[in-house]
């Protein structure tokens, strides 16, 4: 027996060989938090959505898709979230491109760009109202200068929500894009230049293909943030009509009609729609080159 035992490495070593050792205990707090704060509420909500106040198991979902007032919130939300995400991601590319090297005033500009993240949606909405409202600075100036004879409708409509999503979402997508871009070895573009590629060709053939997988991730995260828009749709939007987004519908069901089951169903549908969009983007990402980009990561 002892001979056999000594021939085989100790159990602890064999487990360690498969990546099982005491450091795995470090995962416990994270797993607990995930289980308590995400998994449990999610599963609870899921089962709740299949237990409607009246009707069969799928009654909530049938009601959502049967009622244009509810169903159309999907398109309203996508109509705000997709353009906002596209604007954020596309605008961050050129700015990050300029900012990735050593630029004078880089830190100041980065700080200014990042401040909106720290402000939170409510403060941003407040600022937007003061600045862009009918009696805000912008409209006052425009009226005084005679550029417009009546205030531009910038808030309490679609534009207001879009502006709010861009202000709060852009810094986030900018920072992500900047970090992906910094991970691309600058000597690749230099090499392309010595091979005869001009600035446009260098961007199109070298930088963009290497950046695209990162842009896909940036797009997904920005989209998720924009899709769950609620405060700005309420505060600077037109929550009864133009910006009646899906989260407002969920809120309405849960906290005004006190139909938690229906609210859960809408929330589940939100998740499904987000997953569909993310799935599509990630499927596209799967067709791209995703290996090393040679930079400092």
């Amino acid at each position, binding site marked *: 027996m002892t001979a056999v035992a000594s021939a085989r490495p100790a159990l602890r070593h064999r487990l360690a060989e498969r990546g099982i050792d005491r450091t795995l205990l470090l995962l416990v707090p994270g797993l607990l938090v995930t289980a308590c704060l995400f998994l449990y509420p999610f599963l609870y909500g899921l089962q709740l959505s299949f237990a409607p106040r009246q009707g069969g198991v799928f009654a909530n979902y049938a009601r959502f898709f049967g009622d244009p007032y509810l169903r159309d919130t999907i398109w309203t939300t996508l109509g705000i979230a997709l353009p906002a995400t596209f604007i954020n991601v596309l605008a961050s590319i050129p700015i990050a491109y300029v900012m990735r090297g050593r630029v004078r005033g880089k830190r100041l500009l980065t700080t200014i760009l990042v401040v909106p993240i720290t402000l939170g949606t409510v403060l941003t909405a407040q600022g937007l109202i003061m600045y862009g409202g009918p009696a805000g600075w912008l409209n006052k100036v425009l009226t005084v200068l005679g550029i417009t004879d009546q205030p531009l409708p910038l808030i309490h409509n679609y534009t207001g929500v879009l502006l709010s999503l861009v202000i709060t979402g852009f810094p986030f997508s900018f920072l992500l894009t900047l970090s992906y871009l910094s991970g691309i*070895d600058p*000597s*690749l573009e*230099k*090499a*392309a*230049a*010595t*091979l*005869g*590629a*001009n600035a446009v*060709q260098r961007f199109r*053939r*070298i930088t963009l*293909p*290497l950046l695209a997988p990162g842009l896909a991730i940036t797009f997904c995260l920005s989209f998720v943030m924009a899709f769950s828009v609620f405060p700005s749709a309420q505060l600077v939007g037109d929550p009864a009509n133009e910006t009646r987004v899906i989260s407002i519908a969920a809120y309405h069901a849960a906290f005004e009609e006190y139909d938690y089951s229906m609210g859960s169903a809408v929330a589940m549908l939100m998740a499904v729609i987000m997953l569909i969009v993310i799935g599509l983007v990630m499927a596209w990402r799967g067709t791209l*080159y995703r*290996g*090393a*980009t*040679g930079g400092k990561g």
Partner: protein
Amino acid sequence: MTFEQLRLDGVSRSFGSANALRGLDLAIARGEFVALLGPSGCGKSTALNCLAGLLPLTGGSIWLDDARIDGQPPEQRGFGMVFQNYALFPHMSVRANVGFGLKMRKVGRAESRRRVDEALRLVQLTEHAAKFPAQLSGGQQQRVAIARAVVLEPPVVLMDEPLSNLDAKLRLEMRMEIRRLHQTLGLTTVYVTHDQEEALSLADRLVVLREGEVQQIGTPEEVYAQPVNSYVASFMGYRNLLDLTVTGAAGPSATVEGAGVRLTGANRGSLTEGPAKVAIRPEDFVVGDGAENALDVTVEIVEYHGRELSVSARLASGLPVYFRTDKRLAPGDTAKIGVPAERVLVFAP
């Protein structure tokens, strides 16, 4: 594009108040292989980037015969460049990497294919054409980088320490490969390195740089045998650099003394008196009695180098002396060594 001469005329580059390169004058003939040699921070890579057009000059000009080219962006200059980290496009196959320049130049598909095949055959990577850079070894990646640069048959190929990321054995192989390519294609090459052995073995002409200034320009033989100052000497393997004092000078020779030694050597600094730096190669010492410039040393450290030993010893005054010998010495031994006067170079300090 053929030309007779690539000329650098007072090429300077400063970064803020730091001068990375000060007034580099250099004329390179077509087909020549020139190595820029120096330690890191000597301005050799700056010079190369200026030549490629990746770095604008802050002074001077660059000429290809009668055409001034320092205002042209790199894509118009069309010099091939091999980067230290290879800079292969990771999202493209080997074939696409090599063909990239041809594509940018709108070379037809059949022609492009033929030239890529030829370049790949030249660097012996034909069977790896469909692979991606990440699937290749360091040496293979380097070959792709070279093929990518030479497939365009550029007027000038610039190489920025291309071998420094390879292991010793591979470095020797690739060195020969680069030499062979230069002999086959005859492309004008500017090669940057900090390794004097690499520079000596590859180049037709060497440019030794120090803190942005040219120290010496010459053939490998000239720079190796006739370094112009103690800095170049130290770079060319003159490991013994002694601070001594000139006590006499007669014609081409000088006598130096100090630290209990008295040596006669070649006066390379037109010195008559005062401090001097004396440079002697370890392999120029001979062990035994009766040699010129005899010294008594005590052996401290012995390194085995196959046929020879590399010995670190001390004079009675404590001054270290390095020499090579095929005699079997051991630490603690005392030995008499000497060196011919013409192998002792006396420079200004």
